[in-house]
């Protein structure tokens, strides 16, 4: 068994040979005197066995009694290794120093990992935690996870849940983001429905409330479509929470102007890297020269060092300076029109997201200095918006 082998190595053992006399008596006396023997073999009357180093001295009187002569052979184990290097003080000092460094470093936080965030930036979470006292290099016992969790949730309203787990010198932050509910006026609150856009009503389904317009009417932005004040049969006014689906045909316009003369910045291909080492929050630059002068696009790359997949709190930061040059470009009318069209399409995706477009009419006007693309859209959309009736 491996544990027995380890113990034998730890205490050290000696292989010896015994010849002459009565080897059987020798073995029996060893067993009676609690001297463990193993790997015993007898060949041509010569007994070979192993025993623990500290028991070897006790073999001599037993050997005398049984008439055998013993001779020590190979020695193995930790005591002999230590004895061989007993004058090498540096090894002992190095071991002590190593143990001390490991112990001291384990008292600090090395890495902080954030999991579970989708829309909230990791840097935002780390920045908030850093202000509360949790950062790489902070002592492990300098923060209370429970208190830190509550304070972090107050600082980060986009999170609904946060857990701090400490594993040795690594801290794992698990978060769950808050799902912001849309503003809905409670059903017990009275409200009107007003138009958020001008248009012509093509579909009107009123579930609750008094309709003020009908299908086919043209309405302007802000006009009342369904009233929450309803009169009953006896002439009394009742307040209701209006609910309706009102689809109207609306008009939207997107205009983009693209001048012919443009100035574009392009990289020249010259790159200057400035490196620095960062550990426990300290940054040591590995360069002496000042930042380069001129027009540069600056980007930062951080490469943390890893050992067997575990990130260390030591990283190499590279600040890259990409030289840029300004180039005056003259576009032709067609090129300008194409650029303007692509800008319109990009804007379409943002403005008309979720809206049904019935008709799209683009117009291109090529002027002297610029090209203008105007696109008119005929859309069908829900223009009703609930507005609470405020009562004094």
């Amino acid at each position, binding site marked *: 068994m491996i544990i027995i082998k380890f113990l034998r190595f730890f205490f050290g053992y000696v292989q010896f040979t015994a010849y002459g006399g009565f*080897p*059987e008596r020798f*073995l*029996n006396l*060893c*067993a*009676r005197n*609690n001297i*463990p*023997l*193993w*790997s*015993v*073999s*007898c*060949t*041509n009357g010569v*007994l070979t*066995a192993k025993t623990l180093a500290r028991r070897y001295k006790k073999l001599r009187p037993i050997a005398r009694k049984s008439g055998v002569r013993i001779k020590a052979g190979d020695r193995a184990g930790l005591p002999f290794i230590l004895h061989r290097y007993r004058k090498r003080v540096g090894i002992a000092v190095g071991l002590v120093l190593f143990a001390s460094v490991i112990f001291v470093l384990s008292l600090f936080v090395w890495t902080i990992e954030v999991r579970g965030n989708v829309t909230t930036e990791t840097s935002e979470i780390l920045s908030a935690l850093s202000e509360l006292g949790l950062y790489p290099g902070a002592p492990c016992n300098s923060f209370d996870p429970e208190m830190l969790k509550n304070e972090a949730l107050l600082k980060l309203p986009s999170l609904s849940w946060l857990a701090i787990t400490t594993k040795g010198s690594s801290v794992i932050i698990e978060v769950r983001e808050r799902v912001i509910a849309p503003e809905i006026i409670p059903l017990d609150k009275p409200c009107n429905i007003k138009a958020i856009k001008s248009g012509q009503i093509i579909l009107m389904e009123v579930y609750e409330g008094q309709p003020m317009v009908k299908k086919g009417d043209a309405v302007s932005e802000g006009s009342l479509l369904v009233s929450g004040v309803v009169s009953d049969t006896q002439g009394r006014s009742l307040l209701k929470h209006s609910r309706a689906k009102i689809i109207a045909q609306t008009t939207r316009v997107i205009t983009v102007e693209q001048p012919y003369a443009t100035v574009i910045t392009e990289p020249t291909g010259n790159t200057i890297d400035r490196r620095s080492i960062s550990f426990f929050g300290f940054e040591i630059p590995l360069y002496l020269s000042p930042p380069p002068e001129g027009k540069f696009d600056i980007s930062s790359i951080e490469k943390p060092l890893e050992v067997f997949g575990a990130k260390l709190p030591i990283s190499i930061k590279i600040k890259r300076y990409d030289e840029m040059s300004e180039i005056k470009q003259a576009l032709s009318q067609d090129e300008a029109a194409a650029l303007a069209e692509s800008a319109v399409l990009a804007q379409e995706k943002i403005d008309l997201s979720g809206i049904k477009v019935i008709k799209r009419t683009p117009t291109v006007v090529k002027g002297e200095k610029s090209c203008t693309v105007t696109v008119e859209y005929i859309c069908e959309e829900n223009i009703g918006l609930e507005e609470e009736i405020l009562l004094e």
Partner: protein
Amino acid sequence: MARNRTKTEDDVPKKSAKQKLASVLEVPFAALNDCPHIELFGNLELTIDGCRGILEYEDDSIRLNLGKNALRVTGRNLSLKALTDQTAVIEGYILLLEFLS
């Protein structure tokens, strides 16, 4: 009529009091007796608990004292893997086990 007769090797030994007690109490006989316990792993390793010493030790034959009788182990390349006051472990190529009275 001759009532007394000498014991021969064919006679089956009578059950001892301990054996009878064990059968009455329905417990294993080994629980009441301190006879040696022998475990054989194939023909490669033999463990004897209750061994009282070594009587003979050769490369091809080892004789052990079990108290009331002796055990001779015959084989090839026999060696004592471990030996303590009460236990002996023999390894090697075991060919024959003989109980000697």
